[in-house]
């Protein structure tokens, strides 16, 4: 049984169709790239996993549970099991590196002792422990993205979804971010990353699902960015 299932998912807006009958199965522990040009439907697809978007038709299943059937008050539990990393980092400029990560633990009313133990641990994992008292404005692009990853890891999620995490950083910083994501994946966390960064995809040699105009055009294990054929 796949950990994540998109079954015949369609998303229609008033003036265009973002996703057309998309079906994807992702196993636990996989590292999957969803690639394609802007407007291909990548972001819409991964937002559906945390129900930040809802499909017009079809099903989004996470660990045997239809995400659409989860009551609103239980949605927070789903979001604690799926960490999210954004292209624009979504960091709080008025909070330090430590506090930005702590936000994720505070929302579940973690006791202070637990926060003090968990936050340095995840900061160490992404190589930012020495910058714990800095503010986001004092960090480079790559460091900001690693901080965003650290925050997503604070709940020890089963799945990490990353929406264009290398979109706003230079190639060196991109490599650092990808090393962190690979390490997280090796520890057993499923990683789903939407990107149109060809270099990153080709270097990683992971499963690549290619999308265009809201449809899947290829799905290849150890694929490359521009491959067309299905496997």
């Amino acid at each position, binding site marked *: 049984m796949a950990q994540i299932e998109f079954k015949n998912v369609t998303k229609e807006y008033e003036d265009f169709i973002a996703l057309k009958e998309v079906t994807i199965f992702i196993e636990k522990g996989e590292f999957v790239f969803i690639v394609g040009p802007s407007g291909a439907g990548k972001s819409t697809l991964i937002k559906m996993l945390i129900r930040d978007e809802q499909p017009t038709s079809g099903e989004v299943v996470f660990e045997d549970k239809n995400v659409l059937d989860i009551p609103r008050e239980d949605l*927070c539990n789903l979001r604690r099991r799926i960490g999210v990393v954004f292209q624009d980092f979504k960091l709080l400029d008025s909070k330090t590196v430590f506090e930005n990560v702590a936000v994720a633990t505070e*929302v579940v009313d973690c006791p202070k002792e637990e926060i003090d133990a968990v936050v340095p641990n995840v900061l160490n994992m992404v190589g930012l422990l020495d910058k714990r008292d800095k503010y986001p404005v004092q960090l480079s692009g790559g460091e900001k993205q690693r901080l965003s990853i650290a925050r*997503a890891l604070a709940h020890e999620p089963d799945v990490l979804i990353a929406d264009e995490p290398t979109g706003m950083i230079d190639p060196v910083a991109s490599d650092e971010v990808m090393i962190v994501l690979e390490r997280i994946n090796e520890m057993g966390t499923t990683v789903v990353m939407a990107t149109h960064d060809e270099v990153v995809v080709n270097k990683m040699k992971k499963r690549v699902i290619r999308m265009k105009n809201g449809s899947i055009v290829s799905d290849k294990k150890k694929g490359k960015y521009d491959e067309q054929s299905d496997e």
Partner: protein
Amino acid sequence: MSNLMNSMLANLKRERLLVITNIVVMSISFLVLGIFTSVIFLSQSMLKYLENQAQLMVFFKDEFVEEKILKYKTELEKDERVLSISYVSKEDAFNIFTEANKDEPILLESLSSDILPASLEIRTKDVRDLAPMAESISKAEGVEEVKFFEDVIDRFRSISLVVHIVGFVLVGLLLLVSYSIVLATLRMTISAKGKELEIQRLVGASDAFIKRPLLVQGIFFGIASALVSSIVLITVSFILSSSGLYSNLNVPFIPGAKTSLGVFSLFDSLLILISGGVLGYFGSLSAVKRYLKI
């Protein structure tokens, strides 16, 4: 809990000027609410006093002797509408008159007790029974004249009604203003914290977690403003009471109970504090529902 308080204090610190302005405006609203409640209380108390004082004075013809008057009194006492009846004999009336005019000896010299009529002073349980009773008593045998001050009570009741209506409308409007202030302030807070709230939601905050500090902030606005206006109201009321004015007032709806404006202001302040808390809670709840979509 400490996280909640820290979050609220941080918000208040960040929007210091806005917080002060809102609390001042809301305090004025609550103060007006308190003043009008006090005015309503005073007018009710005054009305009660006037009603207590209201009585029929039945004057009898000289030929209608005391024995007959007392017999008529016994008859009247059987009437369920009657609260009390006291007999004022010619002598009693003369004594009262003498006491009232003791500074005018020339006037008193020319008078004797015979000149003043004997009378019955009748109080009814309900002031509205005075008129029909006066009507029937005036037709009774031996009755010379029936007097009561119906107009004064009616006029005061009309004024009191106007004060009530104007007061309630004004209080309603000011509560609406306070409600709108809570709503607008929370809207600004939500808008200023938009990114933080979005991040909290995405990292798994429950709706309750996001709502809690905003609700607490709304309640804080309500109670802080109510507290400021209560302090002003209590201080002014106790100053007025200590001067002897408004210190022995009838309590409306509680027969025989007396209080001072100062003590009433304590009760009034409790009412204002509860109103402040309730208004703050519902104002912020409405803002959260409207602007946060949760």
